[in-house]
């Protein structure tokens, strides 16, 4: 008797918008997969919808009724017979409830399992898991701070000040309070709890040592369902404003490559130990030669292209192949990094005050030349809607070394033209010439200090 043919998943629903939806579409086309683009009513003219095999409008402009509505996304997957749902980043990409619903529907999410997402989504259980795996963490509480403030005070006094109180279920700076002295602790815990409860539906907070001038360093990992895991080098994402990254680069300059390699190995081992699958990023603070785990992003990162440029590995293609059940086609020994890559996030924002600046793009001229890559959904006449994140393009350059990459980025930024709306391009141009940026090794507070200094 013949064995029934194994069904190979071939229909990928792209549950996102903008540049990342276009990036995923390109990977699907490269793999010869049937791609399905879903969109909100405001997004019918998105660039990737021209390239996908099928499109479906799933709801109104508000993300809560479209891209964030798990039931609608799942219904779209059912209606279009999708096998795989690629969540991109943001929206539902780290929603364990959605991941669980996808699993229950018999489909595959391009990401880890719901159980792993839950484990790493809770910052307390994530830290416990990291400690078990030998990944370095900041000194801090093992569990959530007790509700009794006197008990919490005793625990925090033992950690020492300054410390930071953080939401267990959160990220992005919400539910977070820095406490410089013991007298400020109670207020900080109460406000962080209140904010965390409102933002994440989970008022649990924990405390850990606060580093005053850290860099943000992260390790990109890839793990398949067969238990193989690799790390693809480090990125430095220290140029941030209010915990939102603006510029990213790879590799992390000025840090001993051997220390990075040891950290990368620990991250890959942690993936194997917990049964992680897909792409992921371990985020660390780096100060005085030591790394301290902050959190793991269980999804594709905005800044993944700088790693692609230095390793030559198409991360999105690999991510989809993993979701299809394929083993990694390379081992750690095959991975080499070359040169230096930088990414600037071009946001539709006022470069002085970062206010969103939606509107019609009158003209768009992409930069070019050797080592220049642009990931964007822009075109002449495209209207940036006010409903979503303001990221409209990612300009990425690759140079032989960091100085070469900085020079190429400056040239590319000068060449790029976006008219009709305000963007962060002038700020990036300025940053590429700032002495601190040219030198490298700046802390996460650099940009805000620079903006304060130049404020009128």
């Amino acid at each position, binding site marked *: 008797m013949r064995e029934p043919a194994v069904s190979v998943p071939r229909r990928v629903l792209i549950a996102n918008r903008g540049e990342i939806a276009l990036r995923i579409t390109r990977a699907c086309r490269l793999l010869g997969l049937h791609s399905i683009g879903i969109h909100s009513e405001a997004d019918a003219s998105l660039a990737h919808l021209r390239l996908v095999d099928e499109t479906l*409008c799933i709801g*109104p402009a508000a993300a809560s009724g479209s891209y964030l509505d798990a039931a609608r996304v799942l219904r779209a997957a059912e209606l279009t017979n999708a096998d795989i749902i690629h969540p991109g980043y943001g929206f539902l990409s780290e929603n364990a409830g959605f991941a669980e619903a996808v699993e229950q529907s018999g489909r595959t999410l391009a990401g880890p399992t719901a159980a792993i997402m839950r484990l790493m989504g809770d910052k307390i259980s994530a830290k416990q898991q990291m400690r078990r795996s030998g990944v370095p963490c900041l000194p801090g509480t093992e569990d959530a701070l007790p509700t009794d403030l006197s008990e919490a005070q005793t625990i925090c006094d033992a950690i020492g000040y300054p410390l930071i109180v953080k939401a267990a279920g959160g990220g992005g700076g919400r539910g977070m309070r820095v406490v410089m002295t013991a007298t400020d602790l109670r207020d900080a815990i109460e406000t962080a709890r209140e904010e965390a409860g409102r933002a994440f539906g989970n008022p649990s907070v924990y405390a850990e040592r606060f580093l005053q001038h850290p860099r943000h360093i992260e390790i990109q990992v890839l793990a398949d369902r067969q238990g193989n895991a690799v790390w693809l080098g480090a990125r430095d994402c220290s140029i941030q404003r209010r915990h939102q990254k603006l510029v990213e680069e790879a590799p992390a300059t000025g840090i001993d490559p051997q220390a990075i390699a040891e950290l990368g190995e620990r991250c890959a081992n942690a993936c194997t130990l917990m049964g992680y699958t897909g792409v992921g990023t371990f985020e660390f603070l780096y100060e005085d030669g030591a790394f301290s785990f902050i959190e793991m992003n269980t999804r594709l990162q905005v800044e993944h292209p700088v790693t692609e440029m230095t390793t030559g590995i198409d991360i999105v293609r690999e991510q989809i192949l993993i979701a299809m059940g394929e083993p990694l086609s390379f081992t750690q020994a095959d991975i080499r990094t070359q040169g230096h890559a930088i990414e600037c996030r071009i946001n539709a924002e006022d470069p002085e005050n970062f206010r969103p600046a939606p509107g019609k793009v009158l003209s768009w001229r992409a930069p070019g030349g050797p080592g220049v890559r642009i990931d964007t959904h822009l075109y002449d006449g495209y209207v940036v809607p006010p409903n979503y994140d303001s990221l409209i393009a990612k300009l990425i350059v690759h140079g032989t070394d960091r100085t070469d990459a900085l020079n190429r980025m400056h040239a590319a930024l000068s060449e790029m033209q976006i008219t009709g709306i305000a963007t962060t391009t002038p700020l990036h141009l300025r940053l590429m010439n700032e002495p601190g940026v040219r030198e490298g090794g700046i802390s996460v507070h650099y940009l805000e200090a620079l903006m304060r200094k130049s404020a009128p």
Partner: protein
Amino acid sequence: MTFLEDLLNDLPELVERMRRHDVRHASLKNETGALALTLAPVLAANSGQTLQAPHVAPPAKAEGTPVPSSEMGVFRFCGLGENHSVRFGEIVGFVETGALRLPVTATADGTLGPALVGDGSVVGYHDVLFRIHPDG
């Protein structure tokens, strides 16, 4: 299957029969649920009657007034053919979304154009399913 689900499944046929027999109102109930159905007046193609529109319909454009899908789902005909005269608010089709069957209603008075999607096709939220052209 519940009484209401049964009824909703039979809704297209029920609407067609009500039109055929010029029935405007129907109400059905049992111990588990009740359904009241009121059809908007329809101008029969060859009746010669002129009926008053129940609402002031928005003006139809030259290319026709679009009739959008009420939801993302599977489109179902309700038996109205092309060139059928319709009134604003009249049911011209259905969209199945999970267990629900939602009506698609005319957005203007006029003549119904051809369905832009086939029966059983997947349609998106507010996708245009028909166009209604002004009479005369």
